[in-house]
């Protein structure tokens, strides 16, 4: 017994020394949408660099921006880029800026439950904005039926379902609606939570999906990853070239590639309603927020090391988790921008 205790003590002491050696721990906080991807990356990266531990709390994009601005975490993450006011607030507080690094792509898909209709429906931008503005109230409205010849749609009232809590998924959806509908842009706008003209709010993708499954004649948006993992039916959306596209990893990357051609230097770009024949129109990047200056050089090198790995090897893990890869052009540009972190 004594011997075992002694052995245990030795093991503990060794472990303690090892831990003290690998003391570098980096904390981040923010977006919930890419959380499964990030936790996989941090885990894999930790396996390769046992001395470095990255802790990430998925508290939401708003919380991520707040915490990185206040300096309570080393980096942030967000589903919607920081706006000019937020950038200025960061600059004023710290004396240097903060950089956006796109990590993966996500998308929203329109989901519905119409009794007796099993066909995959086509949705035009006019139909989607009309339904969400409360102007199209019946399933057999010409705006919907016109794009779905041969499907007999009922004359029932549409029950609109949206997210109740602030979320990146809502940001992408409202960003898209703001681009395709001037009325939406001026009346509602884009954001993680908005003042919805119509509809019922449910919490989380699972809440919206559950409500759609339960409620006859319902229509709502869910995140692509969730829809794929739960085998949910979803419709095609007409893109800016006039083609009806079903969201999948390839059509997301196509949207990103189209946007990559005129990617701004700060990466704050919206790729909803992107040009390109095969581009899916309701998709978006999600970003890491990295301060431009670090007082601690080891931390800086560790974060830069991680972003480099994430842009190269890390991208190979994305598709297994149903996230779309970054286009090559974007990766190359980000590698260059990484030099601005000092």
């Amino acid at each position, binding site marked *: 017994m004594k011997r075992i205790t002694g052995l245990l003590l030795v093991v503990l002491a060794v472990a303690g020394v090892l831990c003290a050696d690998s003391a570098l721990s980096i904390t981040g906080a923010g977006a919930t949408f890419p959380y499964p991807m990030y936790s996989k990356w941090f885990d894999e990266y930790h396996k390769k660099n046992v001395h470095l531990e990255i802790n990430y709390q998925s508290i939401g994009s708003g919380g991520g921006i707040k915490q990185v601005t206040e300096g309570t975490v080393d980096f942030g993450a967000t589903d919607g880029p920081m706006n000019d006011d937020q950038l200025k607030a960061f600059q004023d507080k710290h004396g240097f800026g903060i950089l956006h690094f796109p990590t993966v792509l996500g998308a929203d898909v329109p989901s519905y439950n119409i009794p007796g209709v099993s066909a995959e429906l086509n949705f035009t931008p006019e139909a989607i904005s009309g339904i969400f503005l409360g102007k199209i109230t019946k399933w057999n409205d010409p705006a919907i039926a016109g794009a779905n010849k041969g499907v007999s749609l009922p004359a029932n009232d549409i029950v609109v379902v949206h997210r109740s809590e602030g979320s990146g998924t809502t940001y992408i959806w409202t960003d898209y609606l703001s681009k395709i509908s001037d009325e939406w842009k001026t009346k509602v706008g884009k954001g993680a939570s908005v*003042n919805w003209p119509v509809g019922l709010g449910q919490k989380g993708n699972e809440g919206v999906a559950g409500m759609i499954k339960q409620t006859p004649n319902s229509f709502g948006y869910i995140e692509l990853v969730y829809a794929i993992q739960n085998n949910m039916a979803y419709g095609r959306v007409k893109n800016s070239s006039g083609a009806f596209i079903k969201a999948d990893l390839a059509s997301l990357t196509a949207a990103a590639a189209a946007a990559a051609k005129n990617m701004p230097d700060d990466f704050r770009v919206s790729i909803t309603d992107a040009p390109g024949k095969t581009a899916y129109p309701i998709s978006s990047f999600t970003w890491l927020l990295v301060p431009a200056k670090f007082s601690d050089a080891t931390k800086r090198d560790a974060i830069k090391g991680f972003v480099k790995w994430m842009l190269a090897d890390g991208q190979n893990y994305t598709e297994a988790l149903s996230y779309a890869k970054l286009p090559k052009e974007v990766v190359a540009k980000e590698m260059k921008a990484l030099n601005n972190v000092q």
Partner: protein
Amino acid sequence: MATTTTTVPSAGPVAGLRSFLFRLREGDEIARMITFLFAASVVLVTLLLVFVLWQGSVLPRHKFGFNFFHTSVWDPIFDQFGALPFIYGTLVTSAVSLFVAVPLGIGAAIFLAELAPARVSDTLEFFIDLLAAVPSVIYGVLGVFIVVPLMRSYIQPALQNTLGFLPLFKGPAYGIGFLTAGLVLAIMVIPYIISVSREVLLAVPRDQREAALSLGSTRWESTWQVVVPFARPGILGSIFLALARALGETMAVTMVIGNTPIISASLFSPGYSIAAVIANELTEATSNLHYQSLIELGLALFLLTFILNGLARLLIVATSQRGRAMGHT
């Protein structure tokens, strides 16, 4: 305690007894101080809470002033924040829940305390305590998967067919909304009402019942006309405990209320409550005004609870005084 010290004196000289008493008094003093600190910490936490909520809501208080409490637009994009739909939703769902839970809860408590055999009463009490310990998210899941479909397919159509002429039961039946949230809340608060009311009824002195029975009243007359009035302050207390729980409930409500800030006379309409909107929007509130408006909603909920609790106190004092006055005459 006092009796043991008075029987001790023969054991020692008078001086020893004095110091013993002195030490005892010292001990009393210490106990008093410690328990006072515990009690004071409650006040301290309350004051701290008010302070934090007040400090955290500077922007909306200055921008909207009193308008915050009586306007009904909640728009994070265009920076318009009005709390009225949330206050309305909180009050309506709580009222529905009490409307259902009070008769059921008190009825069950009377059965358990007065009519059921002790064995049955204790067994049921065990289950009731279990119900009170179930996390609210479980009640929310129960609401989503059982109450909502039931409401949509059976209860709401039935209400519409029979009482549909009332504005309370108009509009499309989504299955979620004020009525469903109120019902789920009722299920959650009933255990509190039963448990506390049962204890209060059991604490009514035996001679009250015996006196009533000896005057020739039936069992039910003695229960309803003597025991229940005697226990009224305690029963009211249990109702207000339930109300407090209903006002502040977050998770179960947000899952079944529809999360839409509208004021509608129809109980079928989706709505929103204060606690639900805070939980939903706080993490993703990117603008300071939005964030602080949510904090001010917390302040509004605190004030609401404060006012209702104050009224509850008054009601309890009024009824117990009337009871005492009746007792004297």
